[in-house]
């Protein structure tokens, strides 16, 4: 009985319950909700953010944070726009986006490992720098000379109602889950986050892990930039503005501890779905997105407050 209760109280189970609840609620409130293409449409408003949430979750589990993710997306998008303007083909554009993301992530990694700057500070700096570079290059211009074939990433469908974006996210989520929970490297990430000093004494090349995670986060941001730019068909320097805090919210809502060492990919994926469904469902009912931010904010605090409150109750009883 106790084990059962504990399993139910696990964060992932609660998220799954919320998800089912949302599903039933929206399906009964709106007749348009349970349409395959409607649901498929709904996934577009979170897949790009969710893709970045995957490596960011690992980064936070390792005890670091990256505030510059949205700025990296903007910078990657600008570099793709410039590549496209020079008349390059789709392949070159995608490479430019991924390469810029990877490069930006490596700069973050170098600042934290070689420069020894705390990651929150370093990435607030690079956030300003990358976003600033996007503004400096573009100013108030818009880049939109993308070739037609470039639109496939953000607008294309693999089979039926399954979009390329969603398929990509599912594959990446699966791979990330396997990597984090079933490989030696994944275990090490947890160890680094739980106690970096002990990990170092145990022979873990902590800084190499940190650097790799920052680089991977940058690369995934580049990928998100490819999808987002392809979907919108244009690049402005303000692209993905404010996403950093939304993506971090998604990760924390997924049960990842900001103290490091705790979390799961399943939780992050569920949180992304909860996020996407709320946005979409409230949209169906004509409730503005900003009202949803009240729920999300309250939920975020509840996520971290619940275990703290339970702990207090337990301590009080003992």
């Amino acid at each position, binding site marked *: 009985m106790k084990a059962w209760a504990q399993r139910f109280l696990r964060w992932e189970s609660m998220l799954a319950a919320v998800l089912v609840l949302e599903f039933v609620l929206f399906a009964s409130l709106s007749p348009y909700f349970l349409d395959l293409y409607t649901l498929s449409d709904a996934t577009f408003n979170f897949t790009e953010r969710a893709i970045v949430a995957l490596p960011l979750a690992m980064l936070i589990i390792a005890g670091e*944070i990256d*505030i510059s993710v949205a700025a990296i997306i903007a910078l990657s998008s600008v570099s793709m726009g410039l590549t496209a303007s020079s008349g390059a083909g789709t392949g070159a554009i995608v490479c430019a986006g991924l390469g810029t993301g990877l490069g930006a992530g490596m700069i973050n990694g170098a*600042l934290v490992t070689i*420069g*020894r*700057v*705390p990651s*929150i*500070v*370093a990435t*607030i*700096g*690079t*956030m*300003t*720098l*990358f*976003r*600033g*570079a996007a*503004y*400096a290059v*573009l*100013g*108030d211009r818009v880049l939109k000379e993308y070739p037609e074939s470039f639109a496939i990433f953000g607008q294309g469908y693999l089979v039926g109602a399954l979009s390329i974006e969603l398929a990509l996210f599912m594959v990446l989520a699966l791979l990330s889950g396997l990597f984090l929970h079933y490989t030696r490297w994944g275990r090490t990430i947890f160890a680094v986050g739980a106690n970096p*000093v002990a990990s*170092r004494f145990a022979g*873990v*090349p*902590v*800084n*190499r892990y940190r650097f790799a995670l920052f680089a991977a986060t940058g690369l995934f941001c580049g990928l998100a930039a490819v999808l987002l730019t392809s979907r919108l068909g244009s690049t402005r*320097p303000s692209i993905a*503005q*404010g996403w950093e*805090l939304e993506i*971090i*919210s998604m990760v*924390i809502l997924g049960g990842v501890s*900001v*103290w490091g060492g705790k979390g799961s990919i399943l939780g992050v994926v569920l949180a992304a779905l909860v996020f996407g469904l709320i946005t979409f469902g409230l949209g169906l009912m004509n409730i*503005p997105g*900003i*009202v*949803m*931010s*009240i729920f*999300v*904010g*309250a*939920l*975020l*605090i509840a*996520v*971290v*407050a619940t275990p*703290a*409150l339970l702990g*207090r109750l337990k301590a009080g009883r003992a």
Partner: protein
Amino acid sequence: MKIRARLGDASRRDLAFGALTLLLFLAVTSAFPAFASPRNVAGLLDDTAILVMLALAQMLVILVRGIDLSIAANLALCGMLAAQFDRAFADTLAGAGVPLVIALTLLAGGLLGAFNGLLVWKLRLPPIVVTLGTMSVYRGVIFLLSGGAWVNENEMSRGFVGFPRIEILGLSVLTWLAIFVAAVFIVALRRTRLARDLYAAGGNPDAAAYSGIDAGRAQFIAYTICGAIAGVCGYLWVARFAVAYTDIALGFELSVIAACLIGGVSIAGGIGSAAGVVLGCLFIGIIRSSLPLVGISAFWQMFINGAVILVAVLLSARQRDVKRHILEARA
């Protein structure tokens, strides 16, 4: 060596940074003499005033190992409250309107800040998560409060909009307020017991606890003061730009934190000075107002800020290496 012994690390940094800021100002002035005209300087100070107050408020929170991401949302919410209060009662209150608005925003902002502080103190929740959450909540509440509508200048009373613009000795009331807040901070952080408690709680919470300082309570106080200042800045912001809507100062929280970092505040807590933060804000302000003169597009502002932040934090990370992290071998 003598000076070294007498001045703390922070004071030495402030001195160097102050010289650098002055040098920047002189360099711009030597190329464009009009830059140092009283009118231009007054404008520069007026532009920087709100940032100075917010950065000082944020510094208090960072000193005690916190961070307040909700500071801009708090500002926007209190600004909306002020605008709606003014719209509803300005006619009946007449002259008493502005003092009441200031009292109201102080109280409202203080409560919003105290809420952050309570969660961090009593439940020991991570500050970044708490304030990320309240940031969304406070923004959402503005929308509920206003129904998404704007409060425009023609709906505001003349006293409400005019107060921060009143000129005394060539400077706006807004500037004088920032000078007043900066002066209080500079003196209080050096002279009061509360300030010593805050530094101690941020520098080493465990040691602080052994000497009878409640680090959690210090965090609560810092958040409350920070919120109250943000609240008043909400009124000043709305009055200065003569409009209130849901998205004012969106994303400004990160600019405020950036100003603190440039000013030498350590995110690890316990290190930072009011003078440094004021200098950091002035540094940003001078760059911002000189860009158009030098002929660089204003779009470069953000990039330059980013570069300045990175240089500042890289330098301070190197300084700290000398003293701390005895155990930290390079992995």
